[in-house]
């Protein structure tokens, strides 16, 4: 090529060395990538599939107390006996009531809050709207314990408060479980509904107002149908979460023996007295798995259809808010009271109890003997150092491994470079439908019967938690990838940088906020994840959340349990705060 004289380096001075053109669609490193994919497929299979197969296998081994591997032959006796026993009916009914009830509570609360905060001129939304989301930072186990403390019939502050106006509440009951789960579900539901309401063109509602339709009719006839897809998607996702939720039904339902599927499985495996009933647990586990998958399939179908009737447009409309008129003040009072009772009071009661010498109502007099004794006791208890260390190991390993594997899976699927990448991604997202109690039980079975020496170590918990959080990790990273400007990657590819360099120098740095966010998200959730840690626990691998469970259920030491809960809550809050702070920084940048 002709080169003109310049003081700059000569352009194209040497032609590139002749190279053999490659076959279409595969380059060097392609085989290495496929190998990594295959390895990950094996790993995901090993983490999720193998345990589930063993669970299924065990459910066909009829025996009440023997280990399933010791039983010869196969039979469907387990299923027959379960279907013949009255227990299945009552557990299924309980589960249904609990699920539908909690869903309704969440739905009504989050719809009201989202409409009020997004569409009306309710005062104080700058403070109230974030408060509605604040419970996201509270792990579900901590929530359950906080409610047990605030609303237990003997000395819960809320129970005492309501007793003065003639209302008797008992959190250890089905309505109690429903209320707590319902309130717990509000933030995640709100997060899915509020954007849909925010994007809704106000003109659609105004058009109905101009023909004289009153507010309630406008809501029913215009607003609800338009946000329908978002609401139903959010509902189905919440049903999966309620169904697999363990801490609330276990902590609040066990005292009066109100079982749902998840708590029954744990109860069968770890009865307070007597022997574990493996076949019953595995059979219920299989039933629960089927149920959860069915829900997930409906949800995925629903999501796919939702695109078709999307009326809601994303354009920046002039934000006009529906005036509440003379209802403004009463409405804000009701909302504020709800926020206080539903969000602030449980945490307050938890703090109060953790600083008190014994469980007692919140009083002025009580202020005098508040102390940090419980914290001191908890932190200096024998074995606490080991527990802390275990927790740190589990949580850090889980967050790091799940983020790393999830990144590979999401990036490979998005870039479609290696064979099998798409399938791998789909496989992990199916793992999303495995309830954590079932996953925990399945992993327990696997290691009970296959002599791999990690049972009883922190690694078994980490392995199960990685399997649990992998779908979430790859989903979160995929979302970030979709928002990434493809042009930035192409600009690097045309310089001739190798795919590895492009990934390392351009893709990962651009993704780093999302990676960090994913890591923190998993960190916070792994910390509070009870069922897996509980099922896989032994003397050497206790974690904080198991310690919390034991303190609360076995020794019933409310103040010490509260202190533990507050410690978990603080760590989790810091992580969630960091996630959100980074989110805010991205918006500003």
């Amino acid at each position: 090529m002709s080169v003109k004289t310049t003081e700059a380096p000569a352009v194209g001075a040497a032609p590139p060395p002749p190279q053999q053109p490659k076959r279409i669609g595969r380059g060097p490193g392609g085989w290495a990538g496929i190998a990594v994919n295959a390895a990950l497929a094996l790993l995901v299979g090993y983490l999720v599939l193998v345990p589930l197969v063993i669970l299924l296998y065990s459910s066909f081994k009829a025996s009440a107390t023997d280990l399933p591997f010791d039983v010869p032959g196969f039979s469907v006796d387990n299923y027959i006996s379960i279907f013949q026993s009255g227990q299945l009916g009552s557990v299924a009914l309980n589960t249904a009531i609990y699920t539908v009830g909690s869903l309704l509570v969440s739905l009504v609360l989050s719809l009201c809050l989202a409409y009020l905060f997004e569409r009306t001129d309710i005062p104080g939304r700058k403070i109230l709207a974030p408060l509605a989301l604040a419970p996201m930072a509270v792990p579900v186990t901590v929530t359950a314990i906080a409610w047990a403390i605030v609303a237990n019939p003997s000395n819960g502050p809320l129970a005492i408060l309501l007793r003065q106006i003639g209302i008797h509440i008992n959190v250890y009951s089905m309505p109690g479980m429903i209320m707590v789960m319902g309130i717990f579900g509000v933030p995640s539901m709100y997060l899915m509904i509020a954007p849909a309401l925010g994007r809704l063109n106000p003109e659609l509602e105004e058009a109905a107002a101009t023909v004289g339709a009153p507010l309630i009719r406008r809501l029913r006839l215009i607003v609800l149908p338009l946000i329908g897809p978002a609401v139903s998607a959010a509902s189905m996702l919440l049903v999966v979460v309620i169904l697999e939720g363990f801490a609330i039904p276990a902590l609040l339902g066990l005292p009066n023996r109100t079982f749902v599927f998840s708590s029954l499985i744990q109860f069968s495996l770890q009865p307070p007295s007597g022997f574990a009933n493996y076949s019953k647990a595995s059979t219920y586990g299989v039933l629960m798995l089927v149920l959860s998958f069915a829900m997930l399939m409906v949800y995925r179908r629903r999501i796919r259809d939702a695109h078709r009737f999307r009326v809601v447009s994303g354009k920046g409309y002039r934000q006009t808010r529906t005036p509440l008129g003379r209802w403004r003040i009463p409405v804000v009072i009701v909302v504020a009271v709800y926020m206080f009772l539903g969000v602030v009071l449980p945490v307050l009661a938890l703090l109060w109890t953790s600083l008190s010498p014994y469980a007692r109502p919140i009083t002025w007099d009580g202020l005098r003997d508040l102390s940090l004794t419980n914290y001191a006791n908890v932190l200096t208890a024998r074995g606490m150092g080991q527990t802390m260390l275990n927790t740190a190991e589990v949580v850090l390993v889980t967050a790091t491994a799940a983020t790393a594997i999830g990144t590979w899976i999401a990036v490979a699927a998005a870039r479609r470079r290696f064979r099998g990448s798409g399938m791998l991604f789909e496989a992990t997202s199916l793992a999303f439908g495995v309830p954590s109690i079932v996953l925990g039980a399945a992993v327990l079975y696997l290691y009970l019967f296959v002599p791999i020496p990690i049972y009883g170590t922190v690694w078994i918990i980490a392995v199960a938690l990685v399997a649990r959080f992998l779908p979430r990790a790859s989903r979160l990273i995929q979302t970030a990838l979709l928002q990434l400007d493809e042009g930035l990657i192409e600009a690097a590819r045309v310089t001739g940088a190798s795919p590895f360099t492009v990934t390392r120098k351009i893709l990962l740095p651009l993704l780093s906020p999302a990676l960090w966010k994913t890591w923190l998200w998993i960190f916070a959730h792994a910390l509070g994840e009870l069922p897996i840690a509980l099922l896989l626990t032994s003397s050497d691998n206790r974690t904080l959340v198991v310690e919390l469970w034991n303190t609360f259920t076995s020794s019933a030491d409310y103040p010490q349990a509260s202190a533990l809960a507050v410690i978990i809550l603080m760590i989790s809050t810091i992580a969630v705060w960091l996630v959100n702070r980074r989110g805010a920084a991205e918006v500003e940048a």
Partner: protein
Amino acid sequence: MSNMSAQPTASSITIHELRKSYGRPRAGDPSYAVDGVSFEVPKGQFVTLLGPSGCGKTTTLRCLAGLEQPDSGRIVMAGRTVFDAGQRHQVRTEERPIAMVPQHYGIWPHMTVLDNAAFPLRHGRARKGQQNIKQRTLEMLDQVGLSGFADRWATQLSGGQQQRLALARALLSEPEVLLLDEPLSNLDAKLRVKLRMELRAFQEQFGVTSVYVTHDQAEALALSDTVVVMNGGRIEQIDSPERLYQQPRTSFVADFIGSANLIPARHVSEVSNGFLVQTDLGAFLCASRGQQKATSSETGHVCIRPENVEVHPLHSSPANVADHNEIAGVVAGAEFLGDRLELLVDVKGTRLTVTASAGLSARTGDPVVVRVQPAHTRYLAS
């Protein structure tokens, strides 16, 4: 244009019968984004792909870069076949001797200006054995007028500066072929004119073969050695800017490049000195013609450029000049543009746009005579 004896010494790029569909062609989807495109780019030349939005320019460029895989065709670049559907081989993007300035510049926000520009030297295909990377990068930044910005974050640059950074980065990778996809489209009009001159100056200075995509005809005419006009995935014409303007082959090109009066033909007959074309406005003698063969004797257009038309007031019209096409009409509108006057002349219900000297005194309603030389009257069969 489709001379396929690829001579690597003469041509830097040869594209042969390139086809690309985003649908699935086997499922009977006949719509090709790029449909049988062939052209050559001689070494060191600046070639522009020009056409309306959605005509397949970007797709062609991305096929050249290897970012899209064509369905069929062949691409030879710097003497080496980089894509051949027949033999099923494709050289990957990172191994093609190219550099690219994408439409949105592709400036990496997590790097400084210097790191952005030095990326090809540090990590690109010519990374081995590079020395004085920093110094050379700084020299290049100096050349594009960014010497003071080397340590800034890339996001702190203005649009025009980002464009120059993208150009510096592309030039530093020492490409055989420089691909540019509407690099000026995000800028305001003044900057666009300034930067396109700079761009051409750089291209000549470095002598790099360039393929430039734009939908702005002024840009294409100002910058290019050769313009490839595309429409609906196909090539309409490949020519130098002058010839493209003066001798459009099709009515699409005539209309797209500059402005043209296109008068539908009713009947065409060949005569000794050209074509005699009957239209609703009367007969035109066309000494110049577009495509070689008229597909049928009754289709096509007569093409007249506004500036090739003489306008005279009816009463002071000079005596009829032999062989000139001449028609009478009425001024339907006049627009004063400073140096000239743009008139709309109504002839039997059809409006012609003509350019007259600013001195002409013509008012709406004045009868005028419009006259065009046969040499400037062009018959376009399609």
